[in-house]
């Protein structure tokens, strides 16, 4: 009998960036919102992308006419075309048509089907959903240890699922000096229900609202997950 430890990143979540200039390469999203930028490349994890026009100077391809009625898991659109020349209008573009790497979106211009030519001051918002490597579960027996990387960062190491020489690592960002509370949280999760064996929700950041075991006051703000294979390393 053993427990199973469940962790979910801060997904789903939305994050926005504001264009500082008229470019198709958006500024990087904030680490505080979406986690580490390096390797955050999975466009399929993004359910929807919206563009809010500052002053109506941006230009949408003729087929960009989505109106949101729901975002996840599937963006539902109307057949009503948007008036592109109105400030504040929100355009919805298809994530799969765009390029995403290391937390940076590069959007197609309006000359490309599904594209939108951005202008200074436009706001681009992406909506991440539950996707590749956003939630994980490990048996307690896979836990190898916990390490205080610095005052505000703690890493939890598990035996690699792939089984090579590098640990799978969950990294928590939290209030300074709360390493011991992270350890207590993990300890409590491992030793709960000793005669039974259950899945214990250790950390759950869904909807951007963090929930963690025992109302622990380590004030975790961010969870990152790095399996041995790196981002998207578990994809088979």
């Amino acid at each position, binding site marked *: *009998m*053993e*427990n*199973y430890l*469940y962790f*979910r990143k801060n997904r*789903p979540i*939305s994050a926005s960036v504001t264009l500082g200039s008229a470019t198709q390469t958006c500024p990087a999203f904030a680490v505080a919102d979406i986690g580490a930028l390096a390797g955050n490349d999975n466009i*399929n994890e993004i359910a929807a992308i919206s563009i809010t026009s500052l002053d109506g100077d941006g230009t949408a391809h003729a087929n960009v006419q989505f109106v*949101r*009625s*729901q*975002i*996840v*898991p*599937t963006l539902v659109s109307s057949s009503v075309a948007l008036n592109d020349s109105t400030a504040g209008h929100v355009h919805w573009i298809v994530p799969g048509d765009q390029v995403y790497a290391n937390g940076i979106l590069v959007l197609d211009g309006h000359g490309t089907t599904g594209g939108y030519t951005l202008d200074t001051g436009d706001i681009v918002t992406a*909506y991440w*959903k*539950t*996707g*590749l*490597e*956003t*939630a*994980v*579960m*490990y*048996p307690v*027996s*896979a836990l190898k240890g916990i390490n205080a990387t610095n005052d505000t960062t703690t890493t939890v190491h*598990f*035996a*690699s*699922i*792939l*089984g*090579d020489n590098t640990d*799978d690592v969950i990294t928590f960002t939290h209030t300074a000096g709360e390493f011991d509370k992270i350890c207590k949280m993990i300890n409590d999760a491992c030793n709960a229900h000793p005669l*039974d*064996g*259950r*899945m214990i929700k250790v950390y759950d950041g*869904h*909807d951007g609202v963090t929930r963690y075991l025992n109302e622990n006051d380590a004030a975790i703000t961010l969870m990152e997950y790095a*399996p041995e294979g790196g981002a998207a390393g*578990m*994809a*088979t």
Partner: protein
Amino acid sequence: MRAENYLYFANAGDNDTDKDAAMYPASNFRGAVTMSSTEVEFFFDPLDGTGTTANGVLLTHADIAANAVDGASPYGNDVHYTVMEKFAQLASANRNNTNNFTVVKDLNGSLPTNEGAISASGLTEVTTVAITTH
């Protein structure tokens, strides 16, 4: 003798093709990871003796329930969470005086007479099973 629990998976085939079905000791479970909003994969020690490149059982389930307004989604009802939780219950379900044989999911549907699903068909949330072995 150790009271081990054995976890059984079978796809919709007839158990007559490679990777139609597999069974692993619960103690060989390494971890589970979401692959998409409709897939979660459970990994086990490989069978080739190398210890590397885990065997995987990819389970497909329904997508997240639609939400009307962003930010108010019912993600607490994520199906992957239910599948993981039920798997944990099954993996830890062994008791004395049982055979400890646990069907996580058995999708066999057209086996010859007397070769139907071994017992329960398993988790109702799971719609397909894909087994990768090494």
